[in-house]
């Protein structure tokens, strides 16, 4: 008889909530058409909300980190905070997808969304290389499908294929790296890897390099980012939002966790590397975005540059850096989801991909969406009155504190360049009248879409709210960062 391991259900509760929701959603495929959509959607929504609530409880309960199931996962405030963000993000994405023009597959769509959410929620708690890899594949596989789910659009399929293949390539690298690290230390769990004495082992370093590359791929840091624009552009818009916000959150939290818990001894090497990756991302992302016309593509490049900022925080390798990263993720997630939600709204109105031209005059015709997009753009650019500013501030402080002043300067320069495209969006929103352009909508009222409105409002509230309510968020982030052994 084998000992049944004790399972900490509380730690798993966010995951389970989402898996349950996924199950319900999947089963709704059996229902009649109209019910299918609402049942699946509501199930997913409840799943994400439930996950967020559970994560809140977990956060409250886990003031000291607890390693579970033979070191395969950990229950701590870092994971809980990430789960909370993921839950809320997912809920917003569900709302934003509500009136997507999809004729079928509603059940599968929401089921996969919830499953992907579950994967991420699990992923952020992974505490060994195996769960790390599996968690990663778990949500990645879901995303591959979700990206390609609008299979009536060729671009969706193309994006899916690209994501799948490049993603598979990336995970292979990650896996191979994990294997090397395993070989060097004969350990899989992060703290054990750190504890193992292999400080000068070639396997370990090669493995670390490959793990770093694999994770950099997921956070879409340059030069591992090249799939990002294509995939973001081709995916269904809500899914793009989900990827931009949730995937990044999950991947960044895990990157932070892996590097800090498993490789503290190699700190001098990976901090520099991460800093360099941050620099490349900043440069590439911002320059790339400048020449784009398609809004989703612009946002994709912008997400690359944001990855650069967040990597700066990781490169700081400090409490303050971790706090900065966790803070940054919150407004950033809200802004990305919100921005993609507005794109989705415009897309539905025009029934065409949203380019800059098709934004013309939108600010005046659809004042609410216009103002919201304006706020998101300002937030991404780091203007005050949005959390984006504090995000940048904290990241810069962390980097400066860590001595990376050159990175701060680069960040400043990158931000200046980024204004070129963020403000350009605002320019098209307000300073070109729709009447001048043929592409503009015929006027009339857009499809009523209260769910989308709620999603955007929620994003706006978080974006702006995180500016005014900094300290509480920072406290939470600080608690979460406290789970890591700095």
């Amino acid at each position: 008889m084998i000992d049944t391991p004790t399972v900490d259900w509380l730690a798993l509760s966010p995951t389970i909530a989402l898996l349950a929701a996924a199950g319900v959603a999947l089963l709704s495929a059996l229902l009649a058409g109209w019910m299918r959509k609402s049942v699946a959607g509501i199930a997913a929504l409840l799943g994400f909300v439930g996950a967020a609530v559970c994560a809140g409880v977990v956060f409250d309960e886990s003031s000291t980190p607890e390693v579970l199931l033979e070191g395969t996962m950990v229950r701590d405030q870092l994971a809980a905070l990430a789960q909370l963000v993921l839950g809320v993000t997912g809920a917003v994405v569900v709302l934003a997808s509500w009136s997507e023009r999809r004729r079928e597959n509603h059940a599968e769509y929401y089921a996969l969304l919830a499953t992907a959410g579950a994967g991420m929620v699990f992923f952020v708690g992974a505490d060994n290389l195996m769960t790390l890899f599996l968690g990663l594949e778990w949500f990645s596989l879901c995303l591959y499908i979700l990206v390609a789910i609008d299979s009536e659009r060729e671009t969706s399929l193309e994006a899916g294929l690209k994501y799948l293949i490049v993603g598979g390539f990336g995970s292979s690298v990650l896996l191979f790296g994990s294997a090397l690290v395993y070989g060097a230390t004969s350990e899989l769990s992060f703290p054990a890897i750190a504890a193992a004495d292999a400080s000068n082992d070639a396997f370990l370093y090669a493995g670390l390099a490959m793990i770093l590359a694999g994770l950099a791929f997921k956070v879409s840091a340059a030069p591992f980012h090249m799939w990002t624009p294509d995939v973001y552009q081709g995916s269904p818009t809500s899914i793009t939002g989900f990827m931009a916000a949730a995937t990044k959150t999950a991947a960044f939290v895990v990157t932070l966790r892996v590097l800090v818990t498993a490789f503290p001894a190699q700190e001098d090497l990976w901090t520099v590397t991460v800093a360099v990756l941050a620099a490349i991302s900043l440069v590439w992302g911002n320059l790339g975005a400048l020449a784009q016309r398609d809004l989703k593509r612009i946002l994709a490049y912008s997400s690359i540059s944001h990855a650069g900022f967040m990597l700066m925080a990781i490169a700081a390798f400090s409490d303050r850096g971790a706090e900065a990263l966790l803070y940054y993720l919150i407004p950033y997630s809200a802004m990305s989801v919100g921005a993609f939600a507005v794109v989705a709204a415009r897309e539905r109105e025009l029934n065409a991909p949203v380019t800059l031209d098709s934004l013309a005059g939108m600010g005046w015709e659809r004042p609410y969406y216009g103002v919201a997009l304006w706020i998101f753009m300002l937030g991404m650019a780091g203007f005050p009155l949005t959390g984006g500013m504090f995000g940048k501030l904290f990241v810069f402080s962390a980097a400066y504190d860590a001595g990376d002043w050159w990175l701060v300067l680069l960040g400043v320069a990158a931000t200046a360049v980024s204004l070129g495209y963020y403000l350009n969006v605002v320019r098209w929103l307000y300073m070109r009248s729709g009447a001048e352009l043929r592409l503009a909508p015929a006027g009339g009222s857009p499809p009523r879409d209260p769910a989308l409105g709620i999603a955007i409002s929620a994003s706006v509230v978080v974006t702006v709210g995180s500016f005014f309510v900094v300290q509480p968020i920072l406290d939470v982030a600080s608690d979460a960062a406290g789970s890591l052994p700095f």
Partner: protein
Amino acid sequence: MIAGAWVCLLSPLAGAVAITLAGGRISRRTAGWISTLTTFVAFGGALIAFFGLWGEGHGDREHISTAYTWLESGDFEVEFQILVDTLSSTMMLIVSGVGGLIVWYSMGYLAGDDEERRYFAYMSLFVFSMLLLVQAGNFLLLLAGWGLVGLASYLLIGFWHHKPEAVAAAKKAFVMNAIGDATLALGLVLLVWETGTLEYLGVFEDLDSLSTTTVNLVAVGLLGGAVAKSAQIPLHTWLPDAMEGPTPVSALIHAATMVTAGVYLLVRASPVFEAAPDVQHLAAILGAITLLVAGVVALVQWDIKRVIAYSTMSQIGYMFVAAGIGAYGYALFHLMTHAFFKALLFMSAGVVIHHLGGEQDIRRMGGLRSVMPRTHLAFLVGGLSLAGIPIFAGFWSKDGIVAAAFASGDTLGYTLWVAGLVGALLTGAYTFRLYFTVFRGEPSELVTAQAHEGHGEGPLSMLIPVGVLSVLATIGGLVVIPGVWEPFLHWIDETAEPLVMASVAEDYGTSAIAVTLALIGAGLAHRAFRSQRQVITNPRIWHVLEHKLYFDELYDALFYRPSASVSNALRRNIEEPVVERSLDEIGSGTIQVGGEVGRVQSGLLRTYAVAIAFSVAVLVVVFVAVR
């Protein structure tokens, strides 16, 4: 007494404000009366102040009254204060008295002009500013008045703003004065740092502790202001052009009061100049040069007002000479008599111009004596006074200056003396050239034509001031009869102790020579007039003189054109291509690079894989190598 001074200062301001505020609600005539009366009220105030002072004991004729602190910064304070002493009370009388007469005269002269109200507001503003200048109790307030008279002068020169020449002249006057203001201000800055105050008395007390260089620099600064304001070489070119303004303006501002402010400053700041004798002498030298040059140039001008304007420069040159050698009393004395006779000349000329419908070219005049006998008489009085013919006011003051120059001895003194005498010759020549051309001979076509249509000799409002000034120009000089009766000089000496005093013999000797020379000059003019020739016959010299020795052209080439072309060059070569376009270039350059980035993102999946593989390879190499 002090109250009188304040009334004197503020009443014209009240007039200006009242006219401005009333705007179109009052008639033009009312505006004129407001202006005239407030100026006479100021004169009344000046009289009160004067007699109050008169009644004081000998050493007590110096009163400061402070209203409030105008400007304050740290320990540095400038108060709004007036100083009433013999010097300023004299100036107050001259300014408000002559000013009142001229404003009154203007009512007739400008009757029917479109914008009389504006004119009178400006005039009142001018009188206020001038009074502020002379009453100011410290240098900064003096500078304020200094600038405001410049402003008023600008406004009045450009009064006929539809005339391009008038506008250009106004701008020129202002800019040249601004140069003076700037050097004056720089001088004051030095004083602020070296003495910590700008009050006259405070400054004068501290002068001893200043280094020679500092004092010299301060004096140069002040002199710069004086030169600009008084149209002395080299900052003189604005004055002839300023004749584009209405004639009463020329009379008041560009003859009687404002342009003599430089002299006032030299006298007022005499302790500074005495501490910097080189600069003081420089003032005298500049004055001498100006008096000669202006006198010569005046010989060839055709515009009646320009001739008088050059004569003004020339006469102020005398005053500068006086102030430069330390004959302050005579400087002020000449200032006063000059105010009388020059205002008179201008106003007579104004009557002529008025009568001729605005014609100013003396070649189209002639024979006016018969048509305008009273004006002729007034002009003649003015001319005699100007030429320094005995008993007329100018005789007493000018000859005193020339004698003082002799008395001051030295090469400088004698040179100045010679210059003054040559000046007397020139004065006689150009004055009578003007007089003969305009009033004698046969009436010209224009004069005959206008004899019936013209304004005659103008309304009472013009005639009375002219009359009053004629009287003053005749007897106004009798306050100083060398060796006999010199109350005026004693009065001024209380404030500014003279450095030089001509003996009676020197005085009368010089006078004899000067008068002779003046008569010779007049004779030359007469002879030339009789023979229908000009005083200057050499055409080449004539040409040079007609172009005012090419000063305008020189400044144009030296300052205006370089600054304009530098500005243009800056705009064309730096601002537009570099500063502005570099932004565009940076912007489009960045976007281009962005496009390149986009090209690398070719959409080819395999490139992406290669990129990732490459990066992984590099990472691994680095990690393994560096570990």
